[in-house]
């Protein structure tokens, strides 16, 4: 597939999963005829039937709770939460059941559930449609949390998430749904890089910037701009938020001596905190500056006319880089 959008790439990934494993089921609000509000499930109900692509009642706890039962019965449910801000009614089922079932049952009732959540801002939406709640899930043992930054990763990672025996919260950077890339649909997901590993997407020597999901493109653009000024930024696409691939970041920081972490989510107790704490511990003698965090503020996500000021952009990334270099 040439020049495929991320939304279509995920669609293709879901299709492959449905084709390859009869136990894979999709469930969510409006995922059937409508194909989801972002059309990510477009055409799947038509091709795989209502028994496998299930329009659910409007109740997120119900969606995730029934997915738990389906998983116990041997299915691999892939559920869609329509927007980031609507995952909270399902929080109890996710934290209490999905995350703990495998441990509680000593491995007898694993939860190979994928919870797809379009997340993040930048699309001019109303309240609750632009949040980045990944830290809540990453703090929860038993869950895996990943987020692709580009169409190819999205295509592969969604299949890997579904194939994973553990529950995976799959955060889709909704404002990158329309980014395009070439995709080789024949890619073998088993031999593709693990979704639980970070990737250096731009090697550099001056400083390391770690980011994930929607921020990768922003950071790459910042790196290009910085290069013109002679600052050579190494950009790491974390890809996985839990487990966190600290090693890849540490290896980079040991070379560059400086780290900036960028995410849309609020900084306070956001992923940057954990990465900062771990990198500081592991690279204490290599660090020439404290880890600088660039992210959302300790405020609710603002009305959309302010979101450009809320979200980290190229300038704020560079500002973070400057602050780190100033030490």
């Amino acid at each position: 597939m040439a020049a495929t959008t991320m939304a279509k790439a995920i669609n293709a990934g879901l299709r492959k999963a449905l084709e390859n494993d009869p136990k894979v089921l999709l469930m969510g609000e409006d995922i059937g005829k409508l194909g989801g509000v972002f059309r990510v499930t477009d055409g799947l109900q038509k091709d795989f039937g209502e028994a496998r692509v299930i329009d659910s009642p409007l109740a997120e706890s119900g969606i995730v709770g029934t997915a738990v039962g389906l998983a116990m019965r041997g299915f691999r449910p892939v559920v869609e939460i329509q927007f980031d801000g609507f995952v909270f009614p399902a929080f109890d089922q996710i934290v209490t059941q999905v995350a703990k079932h495998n441990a509680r049952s000593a491995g007898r009732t694993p939860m190979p559930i994928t919870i797809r959540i379009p997340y993040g801002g930048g699309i001019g939406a109303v309240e609750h449609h632009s949040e980045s709640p990944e830290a809540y899930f990453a703090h929860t043992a038993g869950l895996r949390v990943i987020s692709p930054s580009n169409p190819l990763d999205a295509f592969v990672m969604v299949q890997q998430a579904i194939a994973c025996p553990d529950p995976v919260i799959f955060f889709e950077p909704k404002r990158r749904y329309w980014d395009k890339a070439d995709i080789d649909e024949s890619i073998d997901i088993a031999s593709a890089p693990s979704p639980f590993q970070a990737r250096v997407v731009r090697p550099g020597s001056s400083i390391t910037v770690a980011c994930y999901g929607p921020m990768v493109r922003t950071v790459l653009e910042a790196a290009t701009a910085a290069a013109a000024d002679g600052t050579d930024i190494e950009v790491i696409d974390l890809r996985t938020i839990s487990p966190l691939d600290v090693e890849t970041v540490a290896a980079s920081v040991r070379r560059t001596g400086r780290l900036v972490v960028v995410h849309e989510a609020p900084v306070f107790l956001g992923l940057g905190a954990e990465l900062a704490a771990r990198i500081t511990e592991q690279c204490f003698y290599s660090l020439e500056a404290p880890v600088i965090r660039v992210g959302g503020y300790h405020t609710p996500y603002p009305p959309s006319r302010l979101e450009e000021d809320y979200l980290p952009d190229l300038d704020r990334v560079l500002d973070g880089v400057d602050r780190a270099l100033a030490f």
Partner: protein
Amino acid sequence: MTADGGPELVQLLTPEGERVHHPEYDVDLSDEQLRGLYRDLVLVRRVDSEATALQRQGELGLWAQCIGQEAAQVGSGRALLPGDFAFPTYREHGVAWARGVQPLQLLGLFRGVTNGGWDPHEHNMALYTIVIGDQTLHAVGYAMGMQRDGSDDATICYFGDGATSQGDVNEAFVFSAVYNAPVVFFCQNNQWAISEPLERQTRIPLYRRADGFGFPGVRVDGNDVLAVLAVTSAALQAAREGQGPTLIEAFTYRMGAHTTSDDPTRYRVSADLEAWKLKDPIERLRVYLARNGWADHDYFDAIDAEAETLAIHLREGCRSMPNPEKTSMFDHVYAAPHPLVEAERAEFAAYHASFAGGEH
């Protein structure tokens, strides 16, 4: 599921504009009051269509149309007394109208200049609630507060057919029943939750949900402003008298898309829409008024002209609505000073000051 609402549907004004009688419910309105309701319906529809147009023009990020549901909203909104309190979803423009919220105040949220828009206490109407079902519990809590204040006011709580599946809505039923709270649950069954038809939420008529919780449920023709007014007034009265909650299912239809982002041609047939157009809430009242000689062409024209003026006001007001101050996002996160928010505000200000004269 009965497409026409079935025999249990309370109706006082047929789609053809005929006044019919119901054994239990009635209204006794002067012709002036009837004209007032007509005016409400027309102006609300005009606000709605103008806002839709503003969205198309890029002035709003989104709009949730209420077209087709004006009678359900105006009828119930006009049943409220000043001391009552309304809890809307995001589509209750007709209720807001009835509560005196200025139409312009509705636009801010959809334009992206605020997450709110008006003072809930000024209008006794809560802000729009986007997360489905959350507000139903707020309505019950507020009603519990009214009980404790010894007031004889009531709350009314709006939600859609889709919302009835949410745990919170059912918990609201439980709490209201247990505490006998003075709350009216007003469900606008517009047949759709985005792309999902009613059958994805229930296998029996929604008004019967109340049976399971031990309070009355009633299905009213949601396109009949008189019936809605009558049924809502009765339910509010029961609440005031200490009889606790009532569930009203206003049987209606979402004539438009779910929101301006939606494309209903993907999931529903136009025949339905055509059938429902015949049940239009405005048309039947117009016929009724005209037939009885309570309003003539001049009157209708005058209302249309008023609607046009309102539309212009809305358009101009919307276009000139200023963007919020950048730092306003740090305001009101907390009611009392909060060091982290203050520190971030200061950093933010310093950062932007560093671009002074530049693009920022």
